[in-house]
């Protein structure tokens, strides 16, 4: 069998071209593909369209790619927490397409699931509905929304095996599983890469069929945005 395992992030992203459409997993800084983002910084690839729920912070996550001006367009649901982002947006240096979070998640799932369009109630009656088909079902109004696909999906899992199977941990799962299904090429970075047969088949979140390249990442920072604690 052809091996899906690559050495590192640099090898995994080597063929990502200027102008590619990327999906990047994560919610805030939780569950983001840290190693792949670093490798994109090194590769210097430009004019990227990044589909990601958020845009990182000034000095971490997708924020790093914004700083180096490698991103042409973001498709996201929430892009606060990032001053450089704001500057580029207000200067017209960056395009942004804001999508309701549930619609974003479902459009990505639809892309991976071969469903070109579906009806959702989110955004009906708001500016999100502009230009979209409206239809009523059982007395309620819905918008028609289209699938999203990517040239490359960059996802981060907790564990993965050599067959490409992935298991996520905690809320670091978020957008990663759907994105894994919606990339023409899906690259998975994992904290621990194990031999096929090690993971319980019942507990696998992303079946290996969706993953074309996999590697064990290094030096995960896993930065916390809001460290809230209680006294023990």
């Amino acid at each position, binding site marked *: 069998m052809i091996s899906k395992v690559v050495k590192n992030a640099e090898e995994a992203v080597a063929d990502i071209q200027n102008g590619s459409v990327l999906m990047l997993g994560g919610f805030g800084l939780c569950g983001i593909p840290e190693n792949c983002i670093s490798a994109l910084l090194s590769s210097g690839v430009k004019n990227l369209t990044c589909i990601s729920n958020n845009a990182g912070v000034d000095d971490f996550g997708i924020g790093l790619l914004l700083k180096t001006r490698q991103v042409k367009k973001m498709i996201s649901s929430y892009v606060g927490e990032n001053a450089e982002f704001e500057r580029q947006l207000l200067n017209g240096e960056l395009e942004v397409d804001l999508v309701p979070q549930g619609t974003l998640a479902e459009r990505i799932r639809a892309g991976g699931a071969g469903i070109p369009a579906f009806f959702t109630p989110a955004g009906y009656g708001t500016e999100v509905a502009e230009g979209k088909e409206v239809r009523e079902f059982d007395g309620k109004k819905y918008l028609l929304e289209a699938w999203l696909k990517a040239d490359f999906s960059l996802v981060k899992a907790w564990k993965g095996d050599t067959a490409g199977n992935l298991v996520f941990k905690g809320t670091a*799962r978020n957008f990663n599983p759907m994105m894994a299904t919606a990339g023409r090429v899906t690259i998975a970075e994992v904290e621990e890469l194990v031999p096929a047969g090690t993971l319980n088949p019942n507990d696998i979140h992303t079946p290996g069929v969706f993953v074309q390249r996999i590697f064990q990442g290094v030096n995960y920072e896993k930065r916390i945005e809001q460290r809230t604690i209680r006294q023990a």
Partner: protein
Amino acid sequence: MGLDKIAIAKRIAQEVKDGMYINLGIGIPTLVANYLPEGIDVVLQSENGLLGIGPFPTEDEVDADLINAGKQTVSMIPGSSLFSSADSFAMIRGGHIHLTILGAMEVSENGDIANWKIPGKMVKGMGGAMDLVASAENIIVAMQHKSKDGQSKLLKECTLPLTGIRCVKKIVSDLAVLEVLSEGGFKLLERAPGVSVEEIKASTAGKLIVEGEIPEMRIN
């Protein structure tokens, strides 16, 4: 006068029923969880993929892989479950969450809500708010009755870009508890302690409906 944020949260907590699955927005709504009546157990949903939000973790328990939708570190409770964002919004959109409590910048008398965008200011995005307000069977808004410069935020029509239409069922403001009638209009249910009906009338730009004696809220 009027209620402070904690008192608003305490009053909203009285609306919660045992066994409900609830999504709490950032700000005052998050506080509601701290003031649930004795004997009322609910399950809190976080739209980034967690059902059963526990308290903030202790220093030792902090896990970067376990945050809520406000990106704060949290813990789990016995019975918690984890899932993807697509599954999370399937849960929300499918009507499985009984109650959504969120903040608002404006609410109109027919239940429209605006809470995501102010023209001329940096737009951060709607996050999951549009999905939540379009889907929940019951939506309670926690808000200030008036802006800092004294303008009513309970309007005939919203002036800000909308988050959703005809969706708000109840409002708990610093001045009053109001039901949004399906035929339109804010029906005054309760006054904040020491706040008169006249003051609420003067603070409400939309159609206010006052029938009979309006009791004062009871807040512990």
